[in-house]
Structures are given as structure tokens and as C-alpha cells.
């Protein structure tokens, strides 16, 4: 168990360092990006005096290290902000206030995160089932007509943009067949049933794209395993094709599927912008794109850190699963 405890500790320390590095990079990138942040934040109709005041208020004139120091301080101990008329306390971990809305970024993220997680985790279940299932099927039926059809379908899936699949799904399912209402986000805590029904189409459109990749990966990994010597052993001992495929070959596909899944889950938390936009889901991705457009630095940094955290978390989970699945792997 010391091994596992040590692994967690090393991972935790590594995560913190990674996230701090990401925050530094985002700060530097935004610092050197040309454009008048105060003007953008204040709006097109602001007078030069007003713009100047905004710049003062946001400490835009301070040197980079001072602003970053402020950010770190807020992150670990909390921060007090004067909004002109009153003083607002932002508790640690404080990611600052939005330039645009003066809203606390931590609170903003907490409202967006459940939406993104609902979308991604639900879609993940679907893409794993669909993708791995299709992969197994096409590895099993390799060389036959059904396999070629499956390959063609998955290839088409990879090649179709999410907004095409999503739009078609919406037009057919909600418009023509009227099986479902047009999706609208309902929180899981408010009404689990409505949550699921409303997310069904977003899940499907995100999952269909991803499933294609998983199907191809599963198929390739299984075919590779099927060519290995130990498969020949079991065939030579009269073990049936079903057990050979389901027990021995599928196991070989486990590792690459876990690795790819970790990547996809991590990046989809912030990267499912198209799906979120198409279905009007107020998630992290949409908010992030908006924040980048208006150079809302605190929001961007906060969101990027959250996304980074999920990528790192997903990979750590993958490493643990990997070691559980294959005893030859030692966690380090």
C-alpha cells in the first residue's frame, strides 16, 4: 500500500506544479497579447477617462509579477476586492473577479462545471459502449461484409463534424418525429429524469464522433492481440472463439482504450464547445470561448486551470486502472 500512497502523493505534487505552470503561461500569454484590455472591458462607448479608471481598478498598469503574485495570494489565502462602492471578500481558492461582470470566477466555474461534467461523463459511457462494442464486433467479423460495413460507418462517423450530426439529430428527433423536446439544460439535482432526456441528444452527438475513434482503436488492438502467440495457444487447446475474443483478445485492447479515454474525457470538459453551443448548454467550453474573446483574464485562467485539473485527474485514474489491469505495470 505504501506504493499506492506514494503514487498518489507524487501525483498530487505533480498536479499542483503542472497547474501553477499553466497559470504562469496563461498570464504571460495574455500580458504580451496586443490590444487595449481596459477599452475592451469598459466597452466601446467609454470615454478615455473611464477607460483609465477601469485600468486602474483592474491593476492593468501593474507589472506582471505583481499581478501574478496577487493571483497566487488569492488562490491560497483569499482576497478582498473593492468594487468602488463596497468591499467584497473572495474566499480561497479565489480565482479573482471577472473583468466583465465582477462575478467571482470560482462561483462562475461552479455553476458551469456540472453542465460540462454531465455532458462529458454521460457521453463517455455512450462512446465506450458504442465504440468498444463496434470494435469487438468488427474484430470478430474481420474480413466479412458486416465488418466492412461497420468500418465504413465508423469512418464516416470520424469524418462528420459534430454540428452536422447534432443538427441532423435535432431536426429528425425533435423536429420531424417529435420524440423529444428541443434540449434545454435541467440540473441533475432538480429533476434527474428531465436531466437525462434533455441531455440524450447532446450525449449522442458527442459520443457518435468519439465512438468512431474508439471502435477503430479497439479493433486494431484486438487484431494485434489476436495475432499474438498466446492466442494460438488457447486455440490449440480447443478454447472456443467466443472465449478467445471476449476473454483474451479484448483484454489486450484495455490499455490503449483507457489511455485514449483519459485524454478525451479530460479535454472534452473544456473542449466540447461545439456541442455546448449547438444545444445551448451553458458549460465551461462556451464560457471559455466568450472569456477569451473579451480578454477576461481571471475567467480564462480559472477555466484553463479547471480543465487542466481534469486532464491530469483523468490521466491519473487511467494510470491506476492500467496498473490494476496489467500487473506488470508498476505505478511510479
Amino acid at each position, binding site marked *: 500500500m505504501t506504493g499506492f500512497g506514494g503514487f498518489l502523493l507524487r501525483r498530487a505534487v505533480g498536479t499542483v506544479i503542472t497547474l501553477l505552470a499553466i497559470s504562469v503561461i496563461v498570464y504571460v500569454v495574455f500580458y504580451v497579447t496586443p490590444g487595449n484590455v481596459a477599452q475592451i472591458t469598459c466597452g466601446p462607448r467609454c470615454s478615455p477617462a473611464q477607460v483609465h479608471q477601469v485600468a486602474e481598478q483592474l491593476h492593468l498598469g501593474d507589472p506582471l509579477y505583481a499581478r501574478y503574485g496577487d493571483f497566487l495570494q488569492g488562490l491560497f489565502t483569499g482576497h478582498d476586492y473593492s468594487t468602488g462602492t463596497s468591499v467584497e471578500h473572495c474566499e480561497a481558492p479565489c480565482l479573482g473577479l471577472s473583468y466583465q461582470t465582477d462575478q467571482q470566477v470560482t462561483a462562475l466555474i461552479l455553476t458551469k462545471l456540472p453542465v460540462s461534467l454531465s455532458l462529458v461523463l454521460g457521453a463517455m459511457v455512450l462512446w465506450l459502449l458504442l465504440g468498444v462494442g463496434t470494435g469487438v464486433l468488427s474484430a470478430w467479423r474481420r474480413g466479412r461484409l458486416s465488418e466492412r460495413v461497420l468500418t465504413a460507418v465508423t469512418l464516416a462517423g470520424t469524418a462528420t463534424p459534430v454540428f452536422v450530426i447534432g443538427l441532423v439529430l435535432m431536426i429528425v428527433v425533435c423536429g420531424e418525429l417529435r420524440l423529444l423536446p428541443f434540449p434545454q439544460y435541467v440540473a441533475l439535482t432538480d429533476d434527474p429524469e428531465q436531466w437525462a432526456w434533455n441531455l440524450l441528444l447532446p450525449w449522442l452527438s458527442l459520443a457518435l464522433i468519439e465512438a468512431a475513434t474508439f471502435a477503430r482503436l479497439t479493433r486494431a488492438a484486438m487484431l494485434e492481440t489476436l495475432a499474438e*502467440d*498466446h492466442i*494460438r*495457444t488457447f486455440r490449440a487447446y*480447443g*478454447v472456443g472463439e467466443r472465449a478467445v475474443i471476449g476473454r483474451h483478445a479484448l483484454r489486450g485492447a484495455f490499455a490503449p482504450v483507457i489511455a485514449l479515454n483519459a485524454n478525451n474525457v479530460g479535454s472534452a470538459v473544456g473542449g466540447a464547445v461545439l456541442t455546448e453551443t449547438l444545444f445551448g448548454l451553458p458549460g465551461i467550453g462556451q464560457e471559455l470561448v466568450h472569456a477569451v474573446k473579451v480578454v477576461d483574464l481571471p475567467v480564462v485562467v480559472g477555466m484553463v486551470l479547471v480543465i487542466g485539473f481534469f486532464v491530469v485527474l483523468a490521466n491519473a485514474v487511467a494510470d491506476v486502472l492500467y496498473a490494476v489491469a496489467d500487473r506488470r505495470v508498476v505505478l511510479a
Partner: protein
Amino acid sequence: MSLVRVTDLTVDFGGLRAVDGLSFTLRPGAALALVGESGSGKSTVASALLGLHRDTGARVGGAIEVAGVDVQRAGEEELRGLRGGRAAMVFQDPLSSLDPYYAIGDQIAEVYRVHHRASRRAARARAVEVLDRVGIPDAPRRSRSRPHEFSGGMRQRALIAMALACRPDLLIADEPTTALDVTVQAQILDLLHTLREETGTGLLLVTHDVGVAAESVDEVLVMRHGRVVEHGPVADVLGSPAEPYTRALLAAVPRVEAARAPSGERGEVVLEATGLRREFGRGKGAFAAVDDVSLTVRRGETLGIVGESGSGKTTLGRMLVGLLEPTAGEVRYDGRARAGVRPDVQMVFQDPVSSLNPRRTVGESVADPLRARGERDERLIRARVGELLERVGLERAHQDRYPHEFSGGQRQRVGIARALAAEPRVIVCDEPVSALDVTTQAQVVALLGELQRELGLALVFVAHDLAVVRQVSDRVAVMRGGRIVESGPADQVYDAPRDPYTRRLLAAVPSLDPAVAATRRTARRELTEV
């Protein structure tokens, strides 16, 4: 009633005929060896006995009857009952022949449950029983290990246990000892022998190693290009072969008993190592692969370094060439301390397939040392490469071909040409012939000897095969656990070994004479019992 009856068997892969009109029978309880070099079709025959070519695209003709089953006509169910149930295959290369993800006991139990209505518990108990039978110590606990936690010899035992699980009438062993050290090989062959004595199982042994066959079977069938060359009782075929091919094959097999033909003049010491030590790993995981090794090599002489896997012989070879820095000690060349690689000391590698870049012509590979020395004149380079290829028995025009167009022996010749390109005075050969068939092996060994006489090369010949090492070496060093346990003139080490480990190694070498093999087997029993 025969256990196996094969009549006029042919196997075609696309346009290639791998087996061509082969017929033989095997009585219940008898043992037959299919002996041949790579590409002779012997493994294809073994697979055909279990109908493993079905649905692979291979065309199988003729009649195959195994344990009363007509393999050509049997239905899927009947075939599955035969496989593992009545005829069980012991595969080669034990690391990849077991599923890396499951416990060894579970894999054996799975096979058992295919053929017997048994509970998981009962199947697991049977797995432990057979593992114990093949000599896995503490079988109940070790049955929960995964393949990578077993040594090579133990994995081979586990595969034999799997074959025994359903008490088959026939064992088909496909190169069961090829990946193993000579002492472990002897143990496995002895195990197969005892099991056959006890259970009366028939054995079909597929091997490239005539010595292994001599140790284990009653009858030998020599194959070449998919056809039978010679078939008869083992003592007759190996003792007085009738066919020229069998005679050539036997002549090529290196004998551990035969002394080396005296070599040319010996000159001054060119390479000298003192107190060499190399550690790998750090902290608690650190271990010394080579520990306090000193040696000298003279001009025109061959130093053989022999040892089993893990003895540190490859690490030592790499340090001599300068590919690895020693942790302690030094390598002196011409009396001067030396660091790093230098053109005077070259290496020939074991695997001629992976030590040549498949995407470059062999000419480019051989030219590398020339270019490294600063040669820029393309015409000169081509001429020199052509010369080198001719020198090693290839053709000038071969330099524009790619490695896959050559056979294993030819690729090794390319490797030697590349080593010669730097005009070295010392060549370290790391298992230069262990991937080759015996006849090819003999040719490559002869080439090395010829080059040595002509160019006055000093050779360091690193290998696990005791007979090959004796064939080429003037002096021999026996390595074990990173140290040299015994060294001296080859004849002295082989004929009057002082160290008990050397004696055990020599006792484990398979003999070509079945009578000698039987005596050695008894001697081994005594050695292990002591």
C-alpha cells in the same frame, strides 16, 4: 492402431508449398522427432496435426488421423475436443505463449474446463496438481503468479503442465527448449522423458537441434523443403545417415567434444581489461551485471566467453567495445587507457535482422564506418563496400539491396562486412550465430576464422552455445553471475573443467549419440541429487 497417421500431407500457403507429400505414423507411447532447418516445414506439420490451419487461408491436402480423429473431416466440436484433450501442443517461446494478463493457474484451469465438466475449484485444483507435477516449487501459491513473474524455464514447465492437464495421448512439442539456457534445456528434456515413462504419452518433437532430438526420441524424421529426407530409428539416422543432406547437417553441428583446429600466429596483447565492473539500477535495485572481470586478447587469437543468460557476457562485450562505460576498472587498447568507441574495436551483433536498418540498403549500412571516418568520395566508398561484401562471400551488386532481400546468414555476413569497414584489429562478436541454422552457422564461423588468419584479427566470441565456443576459441572464459568462474586454454577448460559450474554446463550439452545421451541423463540425475 496408430496414434498418428499422416498420409501424403501437403500444405500450401498461397503459391508456396510448405509441406510436400509427407507421410508417417506414430505408435501409441512412441516418440518421433521432426528435425529440419528453418523453412523445412516441420512446425507447419505440427500445426496441421491439430487442424490449426483451418480458416487461415492455407490449403491442406492428404489425410491426417490423430487419436482416432480424422482431422481433415472433423467438425468444429470434434476438433476442439481433440485439441488439448487428446493431443496437446507444448509451444515454443514461453513468454509469449501464455496470456500476460491472467494467472498461470487460471489459464490451465480454463483449458481444463474446456474439456471436462468441472467446477472452477476442481479445475484450479487440477492446475495446481499438474504444476506440482512438472516441478514448480510451492505450486498452490505460484499458480497465482502471472507469466512475467516466472523464469523462462518455469514458463516452459507451466506450458508442459497445461499440456498434461487433460491427460492427452499425444504431446506435440514445438521447439520446447529453444529459448532456454543449456542447463534448463536439460531439465526440461529430462522432465519430458520422465513424464513419458510415467504416463505412456506419445511424443512428437519438432526441433532444429539434432542434439535435442537424440536426447528425447526413438525415431527421427529429417525434413527439408517440406519433404522427408530420411526417416528411421534415432541411432541409425544419427549414427549412420544414408542421405547426403543428413550427413551434411550432422557434419555442421558443432561438437563439444571436438578440439579446435590450431589457429595462426598469436601476436602482442591488443586489448586488455582490468577489474571491469558494471552496475545497473540505483539504490536498493542496483546490481552488478559484471563484477571484477579481467582479461586480455592477443593479436590473431580468439577468446571465447561462454555463459548462460544473465551471466553478464553481453554487458562485458559492450564494455570492451566502448558502448557501455564501466562503473569501475578500465579497458586498455594497445597498452593505453581508452574511453568511448573507436574504429579499431568493432562489434558484430546477435540479431542480423534488427541490427541492420530495414529502410537503408546494405551498402549504406556498410558504408557508415567509412563515412564516419570522413570518407566523402562516393566512387571510392562504393568500390570499398563492394570489396568488403565480396570479402564476406556476398556479391558486389548486393550493396543496392535491402536487408529483407537476404537470408539470415547473408545478413550476418553484411554485419561482419560493416564491422570490417572500419579496419578494426579487434572484433567483439555477441552471439553472432545463435539466430542461424547449423549449416549457416558453420559457414559464418568458418568465415570468421578465415578473416582472422588473413587479417590477424583478435576476436572476442561471446555465446551461450558451448560447442560453438569450443569450435572457434583458443582460450575460453566461463561466466556466471557477472564473474569469470574459470578460464584457460579451450582444451583444458573443456576436457578437464575445474569449476563445478563448468562441469554442470558441460553435462547439460545434448549429445548426438543417443547412447551417450542416456548416460549423461543418468549423470545429470546424480549431479542434481548431490
